Structures are given as C-alpha cells and as structure tokens.
C-alpha cells in the first residue's frame, strides 16, 4: 500500500467530521426540535435525522472511494452529468454553505455578549461578531492550521463535556416521558418535521471528504463519517432533551438564541455560562475555520480552471494562501452577518442550511445510482449495500424532508409564525438560477478567453507543434 510521511488517522477523520457539524447554532436547532416535538421525545427526531444522514454518509463513502479528491462534490457530479451541472451545483453548495456563518456569528456574538459585557449589548455584539469572523479570516490568510491533535482534543472534549452536562441536567430535572407521549405534539408529522430540521445538526459531516487525499485508505473517510454521525446522534439526543428539561418554560418561550448558555446558568451559575461560552467559541471557530479553508481552496481551484475570475487564484506572496478568495468569502460572510444582526432572522439561515443539506444529499444519492449505471465495472473500495435500495431510500427521504421544510412554517415556542419556509425555497431557487445563468453565460466567456490566450502560447515541450495548450 502507498505510504505517506504524514497520514490522517481515523481519530482525526472522526473529529474533523464531528467538529464541522458541532457548531453553536446547533444548540438552537436542538431547542427548536424539542419545541416541535414533545420536548422529552426530541431525541426520536434527532435519531431519525441521524439515521438518514448515515444513509447519506454511505453514499458519500462510495463516491469518495471512487474519486478521492478535494474537488469532491464537483468531481462526482461532473462524472455523472457533466461539467456545467457540476459548476452550477458546486457553486450553489459552496456559497450557500458559507452563509451559515451569518447565523453562527450572530449566535456566537449573543453568547459572548451575554457572558461578558463590555460597552453595551448592541455594540458588544457587533464587536464580537466582527472579531470572530476576522480572527478566522486571519488564521486562513496566514495559513495557520489547527494541528490535527489539537483539533482531535478540542472536538472530543466538546462532545464528552456536552454529553456529561446533558446527562447531569436530565438526571437533575427528570424526564416525564408519559406526559410527553400524551401531550399531543408527538405525532408522525411533528417527528418528521423536526427530523428535517434535525438534519441541520449534522450539517458539514460530509466536508471531511476532501481529506481523502490525506489518507492512504479511502475507506477510512467512510468509517470516520459513520462514527462521527453515531457520536453526534448520542450527544445531540441527550442535549436536545437536556435543554428542554433544563430550561424554565419562560426561557423556552423566550425564543432565545443561546439556550445552552441559559442551561449552563441554570445548572452551574456563572461557571456554567463560562463553560458553555468556551464550548461555543471552540465549536464556532473550528467549524468556520474548516469551512473557510475548504471553500477558499475550492474558489481558488475554480478560478484556476477559468470558471471564476482569475483574481480569485491570486496567492499570497509569503504564505501561499488564496488570499483574494479568502477575503471575498469573508466579506460575503460579514455582509450576511450584518444582515442577520440587523434583522435577527438567524432561524432563516438555519432552515436554509437544513434545506441545502437535504438537497445535496439527494444529489449525492442520485449521483451514486447514475455513476453505477454509467461506469458499471468501475472498481470501488466501498459500495453502499443492498444494491440501489439504500441510495433510492436516501434520495426519497431527503427529497421528502426538503419538501417538508419548504411546506412548513418556522414558529417560536408559542406557535407564532416567524416566517413561511417557502421563502427559503424562493431564496434557494433564486440563487440556483443565478448560478445557472453565471455558468451558462459568463463561464463560456472566461473559458473562451483562456482558450484564445492558450492558442497564442507556444508549447515549450520539445518536438511538439505550436498550438493550444492542453488542459488550459
């Protein structure tokens, strides 16, 4: 087997996958799930969402074992349906994916303001929001990488701590399962609706696929994702119940974006607040850092491929980082964060992220089926078992969850409608249309320009005729 000096261990694959999914906004989603379903039974929806994500993880594993590349999703779609669709969906997924920073920075700023007052809440929040985004931007700009071991320790410590605190909260408050069953809120409809939102809890687990290039055994990526989802299932199940039983009815009804901070305060006073504030910072920084690292490299590669303007392929002269791509994505994240800051509609971004994940999981499941049909003899280290059954089930389930999200409405605890979710579909549709128009109208211009430039360039390789440079 091929060896590399530095290879990722399964432990790091698990921590990267779980770390991407474990963000501060996950705590709000957990409370939202508990609000939708009958509180103490929130874990049922979390588990349903987790099992669905396991199906999707298997699809990702099969695709990664065939195309182990950081270009991942684009490459899967390109081989299945061609370059144009790959560009459209790749851009759609990456740019909308980074939108989550809007919700994440908003919630984190609220966490920090609640934990540490400096000037006044509004100013403090604006400061924390900017500090968070700019700090991660700086790490990426300078090419500072969080070492694998440090990331492992941080992620596993967060998972363990969250599980322990949840168990403590549940044991202290007790769980009234009979009351929950009899509340009338535990129906198939609410469980599935909450499971749709529950997908948000696992958002990003698949972003570990670009790490396939840093392993010598591609199957490790698949195993890592499955273990990570399993761990997240346990921790989120516990936390969703803990946050429900650990908060007072008034706190639940307040529509708070910081339920974990309130839980920490109820359980341990100021120490609990600080503990959860630290967890929040770690969770947000690791998620955004890894997200920005992946998306900026993707943007750079797309620019090098003449899909995006060449300026995005500029590398920093000292750090060799794609600084223009980083700054552009950070500017986009900042603008979104400001919009969320002003409107306070962080739940909109959470619903959008859940819908986006459902969409991409449908695409990946169909990708598996399409590639199997297109390249029947292609060798693969991992194949989703039971033939086409599980990919079809995954596509149907996530398709159903996606439709379920779009047809619903986001409400607060009292049942007041915050917004109709079809607006999420409208935003996604508009963005998809933009990506399509860009791909059909603008990309050909860039490609043609690059081809013309290449045609005038003399080949350097001896013994070859002058002409277009291959692959340019």
């Amino acid at each position, binding site marked *: 087997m091929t060896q590399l000096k*530095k290879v990722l261990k399964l432990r790091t694959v698990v921590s990267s996958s779980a770390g991407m999914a474990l963000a501060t906004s996950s705590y709000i989603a957990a409370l939202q799930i508990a609000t939708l379903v009958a509180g103490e039974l929130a874990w049922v929806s979390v588990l349903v969402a987790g099992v669905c994500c396991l199906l999707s993880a298997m699809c990702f594993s099969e695709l990664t074992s065939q195309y182990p*590349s950081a270009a991942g999703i684009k*490459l899967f779609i390109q081989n299945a349906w061609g370059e144009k669709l790959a560009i459209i969906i790749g851009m759609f997924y990456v740019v909308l994916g980074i939108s989550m920073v809007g919700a994440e920075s908003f919630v984190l700023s609220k966490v920090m303001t609640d934990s540490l007052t400096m000037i006044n809440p509004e100013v403090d929040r604006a400061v924390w929001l900017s500090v968070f985004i700019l700090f991660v931007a700086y790490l990426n700009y300078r090419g500072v990488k969080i070492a694998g071991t440090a990331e492992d320790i941080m992620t596993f410590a967060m998972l363990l701590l969250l599980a322990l605190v949840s168990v403590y909260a549940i044991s202290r408050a007790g769980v009234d399962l009979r009351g929950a069953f009899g509340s009338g809120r535990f129906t198939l409809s609410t469980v599935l609706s909450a499971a749709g939102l529950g997908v948000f809890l696992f958002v990003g687990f698949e972003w570990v696929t670009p790490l396939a290039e*840093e392993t010598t055994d591609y199957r490790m990526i698949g195993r890592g994702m499955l273990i990570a989802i399993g761990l997240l299932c346990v921790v989120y199940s516990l936390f969703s119940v803990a946050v429900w039983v650990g908060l007072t009815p008034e706190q639940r009804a307040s529509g708070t974006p910081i339920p974990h901070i309130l839980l920490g305060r109820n359980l341990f006073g100021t120490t609990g607040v600080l503990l959860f504030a630290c967890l929040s910072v770690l969770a947000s920084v690791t998620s955004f850092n890894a997200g920005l690292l992946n998306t900026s*490299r993707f943007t750079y590669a797309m620019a090098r491929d003449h899909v995006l303007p060449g300026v995005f392929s500029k590398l920093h002269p*000292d750090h060799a980082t794609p600084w223009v791509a980083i700054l552009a994505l950070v500017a986009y994240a900042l603008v979104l964060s400001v919009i969320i800051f002003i409107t306070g509609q962080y739940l909109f971004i959470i619903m959008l992220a859940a819908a986006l994940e459902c969409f991409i999981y449908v695409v990946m499941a169909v990708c598996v089926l399409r590639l199997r049909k297109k390249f029947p003899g292609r060798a693969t280290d991992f194949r989703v078992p039971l033939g086409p059954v599980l990919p079809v089930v995954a596509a149907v389930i996530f398709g159903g969850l996606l439709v379920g999200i779009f047809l619903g409405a986001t409400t607060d605890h009292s049942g007041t409608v915050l917004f109709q979710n079809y607006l999420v579909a409208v935003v996604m549709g508009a963005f998809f249309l933009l990506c399509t128009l860009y791909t059909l109208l603008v990309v050909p211009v860039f490609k043609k320009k690059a081809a013309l430039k290449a045609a005038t360039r003399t080949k350097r390789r001896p013994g070859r005729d002058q002409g277009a440079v291959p692959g340019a």
Partner: protein
Amino acid sequence: MATKDEILEALADYQVQCNGNARLRRMQRDWSRLIHFFAEDTGDHFTMDVVKGEITGFEAGARSVPDIIVTTVSENLCDMFWGDLNPSRKYLDGEIRVKASQEDVVRLDAITMIIWPDV
C-alpha cells in the same frame, strides 16, 4: 505516452525554471517536501526533493517515504513539467490525483501558476 527520459528531461527544465524564479522561491521558502510522481500508464516513478522552496534533486524511481504523491498519465506529467498544462484543470477533472494535504496541493499548483501564469 511519454518515456522515462522525456519526463526526466522535462523535470530538468522544471528544476531550472523553479529555482530561477525569485517570487516562487520567496513564497515557498518554508516548504520542504519529498514528492513522488507516478506515471500510471507506464508504471514509471520519479522522486523530487524540494528543500526550502528549491528543487535540490530529482531521479527516476520511488525513493523513501514521500510527503506528496502525484499520480497521472505520463503525457500529463511531461506537459505539466514543461508548463504546457494547467494542473488545476486536470486535478478538478480527476485526471491528476494528489495525495497530500490541501496546503500542499495548492503549493504544488502554485509552482506552475507562478512560473507560467498564462497557462
């Protein structure tokens, strides 16, 4: 299909181009890696030493345990070393496969981009 000698000739030119580029040397000054290139159609292996951004040597065969492994067909390797191919494009198409960290993938691509920006 490019022969082993053709690829070695291309590597020699690549070394001259890289080491003579001040901008690239500055950017890669902290970058030291042992790189294997594998031509999957001919089965030929090549090893390249990069020490603080300078290509200090290359040879046919796979020596020692590498930091980076680049796998593609021999023609792509040859064209890439001559600067006649955009490695990013081939990478995104899956024709060039790299086993390395994302940082190393970018740094490897940076070599071509800086020496031959119009490719």
